[in-house]
C-alpha cells in the first residue's frame, strides 16, 4: 500500500500539469471534466422500427471553480441532453458513454444522488420546470426548512433583484425573467459549487435575458463553476470566461472569450470563425448550408462539407480534439 500512497502526489502533480493548460486560459482546478461524452437515444419509427439517434457525438470540456464556461450550439443540438447527462437525468431510452468527472472523481451512482441539489445544481430553461402548484419561495428553498432558510431565501432573492412578494407567487404569476431568477436563486440557496444552466426559454425579452445571465455571472464570481448552455453566442460572450463550440454533436473548439475579437484571427476552428463573422457587428456574412446529423459525419470531419479549407484527409477520417494555442480544437489544419 506504501507504493499506492506514494503515487497519490504524483497523480496530483500530473493532474495539475494537465490543468496548467487551462490555467493558461484563466481556469482554476477543474470542477467538472467531460471527456468524449456521447449520448444517443432510441426512437420508435413507424411500426416496430427502432432507430438510434446520435445526439452528442463527442463533447470534451472542463469547468473550473469561479469560471463560467459557455457551450454554444444551435437549437436542437442536444445541449439540454448534455445538462441532463451531467445531472444523471437522461431519459430511459437514452444511452451515454464517455466520462464525466466532478472534482476529480467519476460522477455517477450514489455520488450523484448525494450531490444533486447540494453541490450540483441544474438551472433549467424556464417556468415549465417549476411545479405549478407550489409557491416560488417554497420551490427555491427545495428541501430546506426553518426560519434560517427563510431569511437566506430573502437575502438571495433580493441579491438577484427579486421583490419580496415574489416568494408568495405561483409560477404562472411570474414573468419569464423572474422565473429564471427564481431558478438561479434555487441553485445559490442549495449551496451549489457547480451549476449547469440550460439556456433561458426562447422568447424572453432581451433585457430580462441579460439580467438573468448576469445572475449566473454573479454565481461564478462567488466561486461557483458555471456551465451555460446556449445558442446565443453574443449573449454568452458577455458573461463567459471560456466558450466551447458545438457542431453536429461534437465540441469543435474550446476558446477563451477574449479570443472572439477582431476578425476572429485568434480563433482556431473554421466553424467558430464563420460563426463569429456572421454576427452583424463582424461583417454579417452568413454561412451557407446546414449542419449534418452526427450520424452523417461519423467518419469524417463534420464540418468538411462547408469548410473552405477542407482537404481530402478531412473527408477520410475524423479529427480528434487537440490542444492548440492555449485552447483546444477538432481540426486537421487548425489556424
Amino acid at each position, binding site marked *: 500500500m506504501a507504493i499506492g500512497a506514494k503515487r497519490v502526489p504524483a497523480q496530483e502533480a500530473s493532474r495539475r500539469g494537465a490543468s496548467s493548460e487551462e490555467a493558461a486560459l484563466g481556469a482554476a482546478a477543474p470542477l467538472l471534466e467531460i471527456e468524449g461524452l456521447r449520448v444517443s437515444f432510441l426512437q420508435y419509427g413507424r411500426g416496430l422500427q427502432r432507430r438510434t439517434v446520435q445526439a452528442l457525438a463527442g463533447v470534451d470540456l472542463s469547468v473550473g471553480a469561479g469560471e463560467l464556461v459557455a457551450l454554444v450550439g444551435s437549437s436542437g443540438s442536444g445541449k439540454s441532453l448534455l445538462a441532463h447527462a451531467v445531472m444523471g437525468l437522461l431519459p430511459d431510452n437514452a444511452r451515454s458513454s464517455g466520462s464525466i468527472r466532478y472534482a476529480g472523481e467519476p460522477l455517477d451512482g450514489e455520488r450523484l444522488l448525494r450531490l444533486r441539489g447540494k453541490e450540483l445544481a441544474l438551472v433549467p430553461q424556464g417556468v*415549465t420546470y417549476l411545479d405549478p402548484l407550489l409557491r416560488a419561495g417554497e420551490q427555491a428553498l427545495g428541501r430546506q426548512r426553518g426560519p434560517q432558510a427563510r431569511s437566506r431565501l430573502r437575502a438571495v432573492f433580493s441579491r438577484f433583484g427579486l421583490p419580496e412578494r415574489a416568494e408568495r407567487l405561483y409560477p404562472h404569476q411570474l414573468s419569464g425573467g423572474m422565473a429564471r431568477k427564481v431558478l438561479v436563486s434555487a441553485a445559490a440557496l442549495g449551496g451549489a459549487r457547480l451549476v449547469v444552466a440550460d439556456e433561458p426559454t426562447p422568447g424572453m425579452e432581451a433585457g430580462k435575458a441579460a439580467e438573468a445571465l448576469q445572475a449566473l455571472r454573479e454565481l461564478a464570481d462567488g466561486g461557483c463553476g458555471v456551465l451555460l448552455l446556449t445558442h446565443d*453566442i453574443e449573449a454568452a460572450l458577455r458573461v463567459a470566461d471560456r466558450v466551447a463550440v458545438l457542431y453536429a454533436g461534437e465540441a469543435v473548439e474550446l476558446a477563451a472569450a477574449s479570443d472572439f475579437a477582431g476578425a476572429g484571427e485568434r480563433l482556431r476552428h473554421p466553424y467558430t470563425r464563420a460563426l463569429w463573422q456572421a454576427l452583424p457587428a463582424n461583417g454579417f456574412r452568413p454561412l451557407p448550408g446546414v449542419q449534418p446529423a452526427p450520424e452523417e459525419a461519423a467518419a469524417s470531419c463534420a464540418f468538411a462539407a462547408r469548410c473552405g479549407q477542407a482537404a481530402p484527409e478531412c473527408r477520410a477520417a475524423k479529427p480528434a480534439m487537440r490542444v492548440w494555442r492555449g485552447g483546444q480544437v477538432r481540426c486537421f489544419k487548425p489556424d
Partner: protein
Amino acid sequence: MEKLSADIQDGRRRGAGAEAAQSASGGEGIKGGWGLYLLGKALRLILLLAAVSAVTFTLVSHSPVDPVRAYIGADILRVGPEQQAQIAAYWGLDEPPLERFFRWVGALLSGDLGTSMIYREPVADVIAERFASSALLMAAAWLLSGALGFSAGIAAAMAHGRWPDRLIRRCCYLLASTPPFWLALLLLTVFGVALGWFPIGLAAPAGMAAEEVGWLDRLRHMALPALTLSVVGIAPVALHTRQKLLEVLASDHALYARSRGERGWALLRRHGLRAVALPALSLQLAGFSELFGGAVLAEQVFSYPGLGQATVQAGLRGDVPLLMGLVLGSALFVFAGNLLADLSYRLVDPRLRERSRTS
C-alpha cells in the same frame, strides 16, 4: 428583434416566439367573477330540472303501466270499473296529461311535491326517509372506492412498468368488466349465505323496532351493498390517478425536482399528491350519477330499503308523483356532484383560483 446566432447562421431558424405566443394565448380562459359563475350555474340547473321533468313526465304518461291496476294488484277482479274510475279521479288521472303536468309544476313551485300513490305519504317525506339510508350506503361506497382507487393508482404509477403496476392494472380491467349485479350475487352467496358473516338483506334485522337497531347492526347490513357499490368506482379512479401521476412524474418540473435531489415517495408527497388528488376528487364527484345508478341495482339485489328501491317501485307501479320527485332529487344530486367537482378545481388550483377572482 431576434438575435443573430448559431441558429440563423445554420439556416435552422426556429420559431423562437412560438412558445411565448402559445403561453400568452393560454391565459384567456374563464373570465368573470364568482357572481357570474354562480348565476350561470343556477340557470343551467333550472334548465336541467325543467328538461328532466318534462322528459320524465312524457315517458311516464306513455308508459303501459296502469297505476290503478298496479295499485289494486291481485284484487283487480273484485274492484269494479266505477271504483277504478273513482280511484283514477282521486289521483287526477282522468285529466289530460298536459293539464296534469302543469298542475304538478304549479304545486312544485309552491313547495309541494305531491303524495306518493303507493306509500300514501307526502313524496318529500318518502324521499327524505329513503335518502337517509341511501346516503349512508352511497357515502360509504364513495369513500371506500375513492380511497382504494386512489391508493391503487398511486402504487401502480410509482411501480410503473414493474409487476405491481401490471397487477393493479389487470385488477382494474377485471373490475371494470364485472357486471355489478353479478358481483352482488357472488358476494351475497359467499359472505352472506356460505360464510354467514353478513346478513343477506335489509337495512336492519327483521322484526326489530327502529329504536333498537344499533350501529353495528346497521353497518353489518350495509357492508355487502356498500362493497358492491364501491367496486364499480375503483377502476376509473385508479386508472385515472395512475395516468395523471405518470404525467406528473414525466413532467419538466418533476425532472427539476429530481435534479435537486428529491426522489421516490418524498418527491411524490411534495409534487405529485397535490396534482393528482384534485383530478381524482373531481372524478369521484362527477361519478355521482354512476353511484346513484349503482345504488338502484345494489339496493334491489340486497333488498336494501333506499332511494334506489323506491325508484324501482315507483317506476314499476306507475307512481308518477314519487317518480318525478325521485328524478328531480337525483338530478339535483348529480348536479351537486359536478358543481362540487368544478368548485374544487377553482378553490385548489392557483391558476383557476386567480381567474375566478378577477371580475
